[in-house]
């Protein structure tokens, strides 16, 4: 183990070096915080349109449904179309209601053999087509990452206009917050775009409108 005195010595020496080198130059006035420009007031339908067009732009798919009965039907169709048999689910109650046979509490090896993962998303960002997943709300970190297909359930009421709006709403009690914009991608071989390198190849957002 590192002896505390040894570790403290490195810390003190680095902070001391920072202070000594900064002391050599005059300290100007602190930067005044610039207010973030407010997002234009958007109707809910406008936000939904922008969100879905951005989803398409980044290569994600989406389906809009009204109510849980329709949602359950759509979810089964999406999974069947993807040929998914073993489906990992997050621990969200909505996922349990829509798909009671989903697999939870999987080992790493079991997770790697799943065909799809189903989670909810806490927020959607219209300007970028981004999903926000918070660990404090749901165990969705691995189900959204390891299987080749990720289906995310998102309430249309949880779509915000901009990245800044989402950051302001995030639950920082989460030890892990993940922002997801489209499928996993790489251009490392001759700059040719390939989707589905380490994460999901398919991201399907199932948008739930409130009410019947």
């Amino acid at each position, binding site marked *: 183990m590192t002896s505390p005195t040894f570790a403290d010595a490195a810390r003190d020496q680095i902070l001391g070096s920072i202070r000594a080198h900064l002391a050599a130059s005059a300290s100007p006035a602190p930067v005044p915080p610039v207010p973030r420009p407010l997002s234009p007031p958007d109707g809910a339908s406008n936000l939904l349109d922008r969100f879905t067009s951005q989803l398409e732009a980044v290569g994600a798919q989406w389906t809009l449904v009204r109510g849980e009965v329709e949602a359950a039907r759509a979810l089964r169709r999406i999974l069947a179309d993807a040929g998914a048999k073993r489906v990992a689910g997050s621990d969200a109650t909505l996922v349990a209601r829509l798909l009671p046979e989903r697999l939870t509490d999987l080992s790493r090896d079991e997770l790697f053999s799943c065909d799809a993962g189903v989670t909810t998303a806490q927020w959607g960002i219209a300007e970028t087509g981004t999903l926000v997943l918070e660990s404090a709300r749901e165990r969705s*970190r691995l189900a959204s990452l390891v299987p080749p297909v990720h289906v995310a359930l998102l309430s249309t009421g949880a779509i915000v206009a901009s990245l800044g709006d989402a950051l302001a709403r995030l639950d920082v009690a989460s030890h892990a917050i993940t922002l997801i914009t489209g499928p996993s991608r790489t251009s490392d071989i001759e700059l040719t775009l390939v989707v589905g390198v380490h994460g999901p190849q398919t991201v399907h957002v199932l948008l739930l409108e409130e009410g019947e």
Partner: protein
Amino acid sequence: MTFEADARAALSDVQLRGALRQAATLFAEKRRAAMATAPDWEGARDRARAIKDETLLHLDRYLEQFTANAERAGARTHWARDDAEACEIIGRIADQRGARTIVKSKSMATEEIHLNTALAGRGIEPIETDLGEYIIQLAGETPSHIVAPAIHKTRGQIAALFAEKLGIAPSDDAAALTAAARQALRRRFAEADLGISGVNFAVAETGTILILENEGNARLTTSLPHTHIALMGIEKVIPRFADLEVFLQLLPRSGTGQVLTAYQSLLTGVKRHPDDEGPDELHIVLLDNGRSRMLRAPVTRQSLACIRCGACLNVCPVYRQIGGHAYGSVYPGPIGAILTPQLIGIERAAHLPYASSLCGACRDVCPVKIDIPAVLLHLRAEAIAQRAGTSRFFERRAFRAYAAVMARPRLYEWVMRVARALHFTPPLRAWTKWRDLRPLAPRSFREEWRAGLGRETDPWSPL
């Protein structure tokens, strides 16, 4: 080999220059298109720079705040004065955890400290999981671009490499090659007991580290193994959580020309409950390695505002011709030419500040408005100040004489007339060894002008 010889070798590599031209053009196009989608690009650049300046002027305070908040959330923080100390800290954690398979996501800081070599010395070399990094690790090479590390390799070379190392059927298809890498790396992810990543931003206010990526390998690296080690330069800290917005607008657009990369992981300490997902331990290693020295003056301090987007590489007329390897520096291109001499000492990298035409394209694209040419000139002055002896004496005399002639038009004209009459070639063998010097024209521009050049082509005369 010297920089000049390496650069000449790169210049005669037709395939490399074709790949570089293609990459630079594509990145520049995508960057311009992505920039246009930002609500206020210039405003974002100014704000980002102001945030960086504010942070750097109080770096001690923000680092203390960051480490206190990260520890409160369950992370362990470690301080490393130099590369050897950082490797020692990471190596010791790996040893103590009995790590057998280490997976690693892309991090320039780990390249800077030569972590893989250090860990190989302990018998546990990490597996690079970013596709580009994986390719060059298999090939035994080093990255040639900050954002696209394997940009210098062709599909054919990668196909041959994978056929040899992974035992797959040779394929010319990028998707098939990518799928083969995914399969090979999935096995390693399934058994990995330690993950190592870099850090793009560290938020003082919350103790959060943020990692950007496109492939998902950084998410796997930071969520599957029991232990996660994140290495960050001390300049990565920013004050507030809300500051992330402006940096997330700038970094992907400048780096890959994307509005946003596929994934951002915002990690604050470790899981709160044993049933939660994610590592049990998060170790954050804070690396100085020459950075605190750069705080001493505004001209050098601005180098620490860099967010490692790579935009300056793609527009640099030198990088676009020679690529990353010829620089002989972990950080290539214009940003490498100012970072490396400051990190490892000007005496060990005196050639780098000269690997530039000072055209300023890097300054124009920099998302945090680093005046790279100003830093290059400052470092050239340092390089010369270090040099003692007669060469410096004669160089100073020669430049003084040159300045005297250039400041006096009549004297200049007379000197040039004599030089032309004598077919004089200046004694610049060292300079012309790597450059072309055009012979003097038979008549000077002024002589041509007086002989009627101006009257023939007067651009101001009415048609």
